[in-house]
């Protein structure tokens, strides 16, 4: 069976920022922002489903590192086309920068070997670094294709992908296994499917199962597809000093609220010379 792994993240919805989006100390007020499926991870999930549509005998496993509630986006993935999910969750992971995060994810991926391809969104809207995908690939010595836009071809040996670059597109072919990061210009994810949603609506992590007032254990016993696995730091056999805050060399020195204000407006007339000068200037700045 062809194994596809999709790395997904639950993020605060920074697209709809209200006035209480930031706390007084300059950090993100996660409580005030709804938690959503990182948008480009949905593009990644769609590419995974397209691969499965073509390969047929394939299985999509979703992996998310995050707090307990991140199980929500794992269920969301199941509703849309994934087959199973793993939640990588431990207080020890808290405060991880991209280095510690990619280390943690790479340890989870080692446990999931063998796999044929790993797909993730280009970047998350809370950090906007675009580093976790590439760093994870490096740690696992996987070839990587970043900024993927279209899945051109796939078989059990290789994948061909069109990349969206700043000044055009590039089509590349990579041997498998490899890691792909998907750009927002890729196909949007298909909707939740009604039957899948009803089938997987009670898919739960062990922690959720414990916290639930209804006893679903018998149901999970008979329907193993409803089990979302949960791995802690111990399960990953990770080096503790490389996890979370202690594994994160990135230290935030200061965060400032930047208020954008316009300055030095340039007035132009409709004369040809003025128009030409602004066109030349914009081209020089690579704006047009």
């Amino acid at each position: 069976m062809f194994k596809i792994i999709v790395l997904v993240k639950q993020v605060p919805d920074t697209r709809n920022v209200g006035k209480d989006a930031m706390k007084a100390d300059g950090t993100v007020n996660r409580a005030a922002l709804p938690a959503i499926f990182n948008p480009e991870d949905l593009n990644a999930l769609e590419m995974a489903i397209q691969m499965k549509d073509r390969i047929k005998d394939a299985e999509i496993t979703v992996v998310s590192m995050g707090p307990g509630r991140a199980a929500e986006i794992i269920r969301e993935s199941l509703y849309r086309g994934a087959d199973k999910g793993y939640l990588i969750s431990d207080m020890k992971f808290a405060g991880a920068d991209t280095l510690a995060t990619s280390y943690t994810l790479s340890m989870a991926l080692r446990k999931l070997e063998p796999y044929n391809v790993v797909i993730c969104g280009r970047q998350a809207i809370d950090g906007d670094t675009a580093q976790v995908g590439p760093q994870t690939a490096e740690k696992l010595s996987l070839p990587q294709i970043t900024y993927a836009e279209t899945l051109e071809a796939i078989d059990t040996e290789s994948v061909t992908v069109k990349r969206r670059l700043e000044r055009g597109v590039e089509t590349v072919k990579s041997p498998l296994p490899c890691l792909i990061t998907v750009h927002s210009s890729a196909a949007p994810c298909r909707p939740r499917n009604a039957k899948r949603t009803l089938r997987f609506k009670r898919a739960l992590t062990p922690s959720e199962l414990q916290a639930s007032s209804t006893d679903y254990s018998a149901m999970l016993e008979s329907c193993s597809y409803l089990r979302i696995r949960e791995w802690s730091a111990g399960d990953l056999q990770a080096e503790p000093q490389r996890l979370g805050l202690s594994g994160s060399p990135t230290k935030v020195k200061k965060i400032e609220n930047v208020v954008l204000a316009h300055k030095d407006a340039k007035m132009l007339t409709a004369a040809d010379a003025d128009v030409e000068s602004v066109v030349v200037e914009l081209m020089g700045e690579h704006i047009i």
Partner: protein
Amino acid sequence: MNFYSDNKALKFHLGHPMIKQCIDLKENGYTDSEKFDYAPKDFDDAMDSYDKVLEIIGEIAGEIIAPNAEDVDHEGAHVENYRVKYAKGTQKNHDTLTQAGVYGIALPRKYNGLHFSMVPYVMAAEIVSRADAGFANIWGLQDCAETIEEFASQDIKDEFLPRIATGATCSMDLTEPDAGSDLQAVQLKATYDEASKMWLLNGVKRFITNGDAEIKLVLARSEEGTADARGLSYFVHDKAWGGTKVRRIENKMGIKGSPTCELVFENAPSKLVGDRRMGLIKYVMSLMNGARLGVGAQSVGLSEAACREALKYAGEREQFKKKIIEFPAVYEMLSLMRAKTDAARTILYETSRWVDISKSYSALQRGGTTLSPEQRAASKAAGRNADMLTPMLKLFASEYANQNAYDAIQVHGGTGFMKDFPVERLYRDARILSIYEGTSQLQVVAAIRFVTNDSYTALINSYAEQKVEPQFEHLRTILAKMSDKYLKAVETVKGFENEELLDFHARRLVEIAGCLIMGHLLVLDANRAVTEELPNSSDYVKSAEIFIAHAAAKVKEHSTFIKHFNAEKIANYKSPAARD
């Protein structure tokens, strides 16, 4: 945007106490859960499933269908090589809903369906219609599956029904150039071909919604030499079998995304659905009731869109240094739009519940269950309520949708006349609602017998008997006075002992009955909202008060007209002056 979760009234109506009965009957012991992993295990599970699927449809409606509506309206569908090509947005809407697995919502699970009650199914239709009433036709024609399920042979069911859930589109091909409201005049010829063991269809159909669909239900004359309904049978045709051509699509005023086709049948092979000669008498009538419920949902969805557009604009637009919503002339319009929408919605879901119960009993019988005498009586009562509420719903919901679209433009003023705002499209889309699937005038024809045989009176009384909080007694008093006027008006018209005079006053009588039914339902809604302590319960109270105040005035108008009507003066109306 999610058109389900942003409208609390939907969950309110879904949670009506009668839904328990609907679902228990529909799921009949919840035994499907042993065979299908997506079937509910109990009532709560089913309700949760409805909620989740409506969330999906609400999101697609808000995020995809509504944003596509303007382009679809401009682009429309067109014909290429005798086949229909949807507007790009239409195709995208259809593909997305297919991926979401929300075709075949009401079909049994063994045919790949979700086996939902009519209530969430109709609710989904309302949600889709709010986003794009024209597209709602293409989605709503999955109703055809119901007809196949109820009346076709097992072979036909097995052949066609599983395809609905994978996105096969449907059409019901009834109308012809000379057979519109009068379907008895259908001419399309069906002849049995011994060689292929198929029926061959020849002729022309006109005004066929989604006429190039993959699965087509066709009304045709199978009995040579007949000229009335008894010579008509019902057939299913698969587009893949060939023999049909789309000659043209109509250039319409509204619902432009929904292709209205002129279709030519040339030896098109088909299979008989059910029994010969029962086409119009039984099957089309059944399908038509479903379609009328569908137009009810479409109308309520469109009204909801009109209300929201108007309210939004009135809260933003300033004139004379004030938001226009602060002017009595404007806020009255907006509140009345809301009250009419709520009134149409409450009769929509009341109708859906009775249709659902009636259909579930029929399904039980088809499945081989012998109903107990109590169940038979319950089934019969549900069927009667469904039959009497359906034309009332279609009449009022579609007329209100037109009034609401008209007022929505009025609130926008001159801007609303431009193509810059959606209200202009809503106005054009609304116009067909009171025409197709039976004009308002034909709904009155269907409803008037329930006036004269006192069925509506019994229904109204059954609502009036339900206990409500003391705060609603004043509304009940007004409704009781309206009932008195209704009974007197009926008596007056019956006293004429003249069929023509009965027809002449029929609409007035049916409208009075409708005002009473909706008034009572709104009181019951308000009472439930208050007793359930809903945070927005005052909205339901407001709508009940506003609607009943206006309904009382309407009833007075109609009853006064009837009371003072001089029977001889009907002559004045008979030959409208041409002034030539």
